[in-house]
């Protein structure tokens, strides 16, 4: 666990350095195109892991987090994403707060998704009575579920803050972007409401975290795409 923590930590330092340099060059938060957005999401995932990992003492969380961060960064670097140089616009603090807060929330949702995968892997082995080597390294089911719930709440609160701040931007935002953002908010609100009212068993909540994050990533692509096409 210590190795995983330091490995992700080292990656986090490099990501912070990259975003900082890029931010200084742009004179604003570096989330102006899909490439930067994906790097920012990967940074948020690492950030949440750094906060959550030691607090919940979830073994193997790092081993699951590191590949996701690597995948996101590889996708950002390799995928044929157009990386337009955004014009130097006057900084809009509300817009930057809105976008960065929403993306940090994605970090929490990503980690909830990872915890969900870990939950389902373990749950399946417990149900089928076929215990593989990985089973002995995974954290207890109840601890994982508690972590999922807290991460969902963290993500939801941050996302709500991001969403509400979007109304103070002072510029007209594309309707598709607004609908996508509200759609993600409703999706996670539904999962949390279902959890609170006991509509779903923990296994279903874990599965919904995976489905939710996959949908949220797709919608994020949609949001960024529409933002880029509307860029002056």
């Amino acid at each position, binding site marked *: 666990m210590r190795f995983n923590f330091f490995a992700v930590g080292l990656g986090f330092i490099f990501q912070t350095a990259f975003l900082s340099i890029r931010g200084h060059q742009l004179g604003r938060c570096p989330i102006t195109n899909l490439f930067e957005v994906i790097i920012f999401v990967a940074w948020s995932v690492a950030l949440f892991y750094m906060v959550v990992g030691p607090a919940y003492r979830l073994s193997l969380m790092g081993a699951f987090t590191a590949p996701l961060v690597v995948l996101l960064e590889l996708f950002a670097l390799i995928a044929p994403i157009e990386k337009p140089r955004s014009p130097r616009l006057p900084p809009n603090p509300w817009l930057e707060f809105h976008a960065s807060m929403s993306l940090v929330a994605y970090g929490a949702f990503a980690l909830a998704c990872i915890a969900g995968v870990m939950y389902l892997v373990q749950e399946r082995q417990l149900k089928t*009575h076929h215990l593989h080597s990985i089973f002995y390294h995974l954290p207890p089911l109840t601890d994982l579920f508690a972590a999922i719930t807290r991460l969902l709440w963290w993500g939801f609160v941050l996302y709500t803050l991001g969403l509400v701040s979007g109304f103070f931007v002072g510029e007209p935002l594309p309707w598709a972007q607004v609908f996508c953002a509200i759609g993600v908010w409703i999706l996670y609100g539904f999962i949390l409401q279902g959890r609170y009212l006991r509509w779903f068993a923990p296994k279903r909540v874990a599965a919904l975290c995976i489905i939710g994050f996959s949908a949220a990533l797709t919608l994020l692509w949609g949001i960024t795409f529409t933002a880029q096409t509307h860029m002056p």
Partner: protein
Amino acid sequence: MNLFCVGLSHHTADVETLERFGGTAETDCVLRSCGCTEALLLSTCNRVEVYAAADNFVPTDLIARCLARTQNLQGNENFYRYEAAECVRHLFRVASGLDSMVVGETEILGQTKKAYEKARASGAAGRYFHRLFQRAFRVAKQVRTHTEITRGAVSVGSVAVDLAQKIFGELRNCKVLVLGAGETSERTVRALISRGVVDLRVSNRSPERAKALALAVTGCPVPFAEWPEQCREIDILLTSTSSEVPILSQEKLAPMLRERIDRPLFIIDIAVPRNVAPNVNTLDGVYLYDIDSLQSIAEQSLVMRREQVAAAEQIISQHVAEFAESIARGLNRGPDPEDDPTVGESSLRVSES
């Protein structure tokens, strides 16, 4: 320095023979009379072996014969003997649990440490044994951390308790209902208590037996007619009644689960025939393990441990070579403060922590 080991273990002798040698004073006498400068007796329920070092050559056959004679044993063919590097390898294997009946068990390391401590306190173990045994403890620790030789439980009770911990983490806040007051359930309950379970409820057809078990495990007796209602709030159900038909079915349990959808229920059914219908396992949040599945996991763990033996042997071989080299180097120089057996006291404590 001539190092050797002579002994009996579960591989070569039966329990009756092993019992005869359990910590006898004659063993020390035999070793002294043979001119050994350092000696150590390791006696456990599965092995009795002596490790000795002498300045002169001592035939191990003679030691085996003498030991057999002290206990009026016919012949000495049950005794195994290891000398020099092979003796070092054997000790490292023993301390690492590779030579144990249950591969990878860790109790033997504690027993070896105790035996060394005893020999050191009595003056029977000196500078040479200090280096040898400290190295053995290091090897055992390395084998344990670098391989999965100790992974997984290998008895039905410990498998059940391990699974409970994989589901609930801390067992301190778990509520446990014991159904049936037999010997097996008592053993499993005691294993659960040892891992922190406090809230115990006991139910049995015979209220007297339920009360007796509840008293023995500081639990609370529950009338047999009321046990199904307990399923609404308990976390672990341990059943071992003599009922011929299942006493818990999916139809009975499903309505109760709706009220506790976010809390898992772990059912350990160690009764034969089974007390819980197998389809209960299909319910969300219910993990049902019967005696067969628990035994199968114990066997899986044993297989997994055996697969780790090769990796452990590799670590041991490396240490045997290093130890031989360090001894050869050490013989050509004066006494090293690190070789002082009094240092062993603190290093032993460190390795035990």
